[in-house]
């Protein structure tokens, strides 16, 4: 029914849309759900890419689901002690943030066309640029370590889309996944430390 190119475009739109939701939502549980779904959509996108082995895409999906579970547990524990941590008033209104996500997507498309990389697929570059931009925006606009951490991991997710498609070495790919886990662990540690301070 759909051409492979069209399916890939749709998945990219889904990834970008979900990343935009992570940016626009205020509730941390909503953010986390959107982030987990974005990770799954990112895995599906990698499955559509011929350069990436299918097993790696599956691992990417599993990784996102596990990290989302870890964050949910950390977030719940932090919320029990400090209501303020998770539901602080946002710095920028949600509608403006959604608009910023759209702007970043358009900018990423322009950049992928204006500055193409010879061995990277332009469609993957669009997803990478958008996710890095949105992740950076989430990280810089958020006050709580958990939300800022979701931004950092969105950036890493975006980068992995590009990295998995250009890197042949399985060791390097494994180390990149290890870095995501390390960042997740640090975010949980920061969230817990903040909870201790607030308590």
């Amino acid at each position, binding site marked *: 029914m759909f051409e492979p190119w069209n399916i890939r475009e749709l998945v990219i739109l889904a990834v970008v849309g979900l990343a935009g939701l992570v940016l626009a939502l205020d509730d941390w549980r909503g953010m986390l759900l959107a982030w987990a779904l974005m990770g799954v959509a990112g895995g599906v996108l990698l499955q559509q890419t011929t350069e990436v082995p299918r097993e790696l895409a599956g691992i990417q999906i599993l990784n996102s689901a596990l990290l989302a579970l870890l964050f949910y547990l950390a977030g719940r524990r932090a919320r029990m002690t400090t209501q303020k941590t998770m539901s602080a008033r946002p710095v920028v209104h949600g509608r403006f943030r959604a608009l910023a996500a759209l702007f970043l997507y358009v900018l990423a498309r322009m950049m992928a066309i204006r500055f193409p990389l010879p061995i990277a697929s332009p469609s993957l570059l669009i997803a990478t640029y958008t996710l890095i931009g949105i992740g950076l925006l989430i990280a810089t606009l958020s006050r709580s370590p958990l939300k800022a951490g979701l931004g950092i991991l969105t950036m890493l997710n975006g980068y992995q889309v590009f990295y998995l498609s250009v890197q042949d070495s399985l060791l390097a790919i494994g180390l990149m996944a290890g*870095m995501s886990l*390390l960042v997740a662990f640090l975010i949980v540690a920061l969230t817990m430390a903040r909870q201790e301070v607030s308590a």
Partner: protein
Amino acid sequence: MNFPLLILLAVPFLAAPVIYPLRRTPLAAPFAAAIAIALVGFLWIVPWPIATTRPDQATLGAPLVLLGRSLRLTETDRWALSTLWGCAALMFLTAWPFRFERRLYPIGLAAGGLWTIGLLLRPISLGTFFTGGAALLLALTLLGEGHGMEGATQYLIAASLGFLAWVTAAWAAEQATLNPGQPLWTTLTMLLIGMAMVLWLGVWPAYRWVLLLFAEGAPVGAAFTVFLLNYGTWFWLLAWAQEFPWLPQLPGWSAVLQTMGILMMLSSAVLALAERGWGTIGGYAWLASSGLSWLALGLGTVEGIHLSAWTLWIRIVALLGLAFGLAAYRRMSGSTESGRVPLDQGPWVIALLLGSGMALIDAPPFPGFTARWTLTRLLLPSHPLLSLAWIGGAGLLGWALLRELLRPQGETVPLRPMPRSAVWFGIAWWTAELLLLFVSPWLGLQLRPLADAWIHLSLLE
């Protein structure tokens, strides 16, 4: 199998879990320092047989092969690792009297171990993951009782972004080697290295996390973080230049380093005027001090490179003093804001903060002044305005420090008394540091092989 090298790499990771349960006891600091000093001793006591793997580079012992990748120790690496672990030992001792620095010992050893692997591992694209891991792990040393989280969170953002820039730069550098004659890859490599350094070294506009770490983080943990990132990047960049010899020959190389150095020195001097607090001003003084080192390296001349290597030793002593002073100040008043500890109630703390700050901005009679003076003389004929600007920059920072000293005490806060042993340790440390400051020019001369490695790469003469 090169067993001595395996031991060198494994010891920090074996020691970290042993120190972790001891972190709340007074044993942890001397134990961690002893491990770090033992590593330096090990580097020099072991009779490493010279092996030649590449015509242009001899290694100390045969390379160690792990998972199909090689780890090799060269003479330059020996100097770099000695400096890193030697300074780490001093940092651990500095944190000794302060309970809120307890995470530093195990995490510092693990981060140092990861950075060591990153420096020695080839290909460099894989080493990037280990240096990146070390940089990220340092975020844990910044946490402690009563310390703010904003600095640690901002640091994590900068470290993650910097790591991504390094990984992509390594990939682009490999592409440039595989596809010679394509300017895209060399330009991309240079651009990404510049971005990574801006993020990791706290160059304007990505400087805010450095100040937050000193103002609200655990002070010795913050000092350890900026030390490992700054010194580690200096050695890391040397490893890059050795692996990709075309890199220092690029026209943008010197420009990037010089721009960074100038930005660090001038922006910190101007911005410090609008800030208050010993921690924040100390952070600016550190930025200005490391900027001089990068500017000197970026000059690409024999004198500049020697000067850059020489300042490595001078800066660490002043940084240690600043960290100790800030930690003592925080211990007494619960904050690093100015005016909390009056001069009559903590004279040695204020003297340490002021003295270390002045040493960082290279005020006379501290030995850093000779470095600043030499650099000014080097650059005065070609860039007179710039030379005057950074002499003026040091003056502005000095004014900011003096203003902290003269600031009248605001609200009266009850001071927590320092234990007598810690006060004596502080005074002894202050004296030792003063002595170190004056002997550091001679200690710095020992780092000549590091400068020679750069000069050999640049083919200057």
